[in-house]
């Protein structure tokens, strides 16, 4: 499935929810599905600091694909983190860089990526794209 098909899939998943409560409960569920990040990486080096909640993000290159692992100390944030990972992890660097993350808006979570929320998510998306750029450059040099 390409990135846009996957975004459509997530949008469809969220369409069944009647109200915010169902949506938040689903995000709580998703937060539990996020693979546990090795505690040794939950350090300042991988920390994306938001004023409100913290996000840790790591990226590795495996067979030409960028693999992200991440965590957050807040559960709703973690649920959204898990969606971002689902969409962007294990992809070509170029694909990650070119993606317009329309699903966030379409499932009604745009306020969570607003700079005023300061929850680390907006910086996380930027950081994911920066990692992709770094790996793309590295691959081109080889």
């Amino acid at each position, binding site marked *: 499935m390409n990135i846009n098909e996957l975004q459509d899939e997530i949008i469809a998943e969220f369409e069944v929810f009647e109200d*915010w*409560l169902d949506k*938040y*409960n689903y995000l*709580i569920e998703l937060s539990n599905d996020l693979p546990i990040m090795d505690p040794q990486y939950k350090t300042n080096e991988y920390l994306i600091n938001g*004023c*409100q*909640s*913290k996000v840790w993000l790591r990226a590795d290159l495996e067979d030409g694909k960028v693999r992200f692992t991440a965590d957050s*100390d*807040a*559960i*709703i*944030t973690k649920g959204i983190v898990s969606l971002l990972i689902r969409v962007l992890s294990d992809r070509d660097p170029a694909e990650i860089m070119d993606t317009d993350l329309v699903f966030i808006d379409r499932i009604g979570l745009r306020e969570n990526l607003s700079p005023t929320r300061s*929850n680390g998510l907006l910086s996380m998306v930027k950081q994911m794209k920066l990692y992709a750029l770094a790996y793309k450059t590295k691959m081109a040099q080889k």
Partner: protein
Amino acid sequence: MDFEVDKIRQDFPLLSQKVHGHTIAYFDNGATTQKPSSVIETVRRYYEEENASIHRGIHFLSDRSTETYEKARERVRKHINAASTNEIIFTSGTTGSINALAFSFGEKYLSPGTEVIISEMEHHSNIVPWQMACERKGAKLRVVPFNENGELVMEAFRKLLSDKTRIVAITHISNSLGTINPLKEIIRLAHKHEVPVLVDGAQALPHESVDVRDLDADFYAFSGHKAYGPNGIGVLYGKEKLLYDLPPYQGGGDMVDCVTFDKTTYNELPYKFEAGTMNYIGAAGLAAALDYITDIGLERIREYEKYLLEYATMKLMSVPGLEIYGNAANKISILSFLIDGIHPYDAGMVLDKLGIAVRTGTHCTQPVMDHFKITGTLRASLVFYNTTAEIDRLHAGLHQVREMFG
């Protein structure tokens, strides 16, 4: 309780606003308060009927505008019982006031070997400007700790005071703990060492009647927007003699007497500290806000808010796993709390969907959070337009939070 809160709420247009389908329960008053119609009307009328730049014009409107601005200064003087309008400097807010003083005072009185005393419960606005001044002048910042209830350790303060101390900068009321500090005692002790005291009154002015002469405060800073007035207006009070000796903070129009390329002489107090076009419309709005709270009566406000604090404390304590940070014997209606194991951001997001506005995070007091070894809290800061019914909604909301995340 003999307090007609329903009637008072009608003075605040925003309070009937719906958020996510619910009438808003606004508990973020420590950050900013909503405005009564009289303040909104004053600002609107000013723009419609009076607007003209102050002090410089010779035309009718400029005269009238200047008069309104100076009347606002007199209104502020009266409210805090300052000795003269020369002691009332308009600024952009508490942060602006403290920065102005820290710069100006630092330039004149700080040097290597001197010290500034602040407390552990200060808002960042009363930490960073002093830190900057100390760095610039090679002075040292000393910090008075607070105890587990969120009360200043007065014994530590006494020990920190010395002949090196040049100024004490302390909050009247803590914005994250609600603690009312024993100001009179703090000022008396500082004065024994001939050290002046700046009081950060941002949280006090909306809740307490402030008398700078009774307190014998040397400097007192506060904001309009936290006291039902407009945004972008604040006050720095200073004793005339002290202000007279301080150098200006910013250069520009209105603060000067005579400008040549060789030398500029400065205007008199309070204009020496009011460079550029001041927020005269904000000043008029602030005067209207002071009229408004005076009309209700600060004593009545205090009594009702005390009742709200007791009611809210009792309600919150009944939520399993909830802990309140800041249990000073003498505190205002600010409640900082956490529910065991639940991130404040998660809780705040759920409350938001229920139309309940609280603040989450560090409340610009990171050292307070460090003291308790936590990363943040939820904060409900209540004022006289809040109701027990709203507190019940908060209580129910917190139960829902527990169900979702507990």
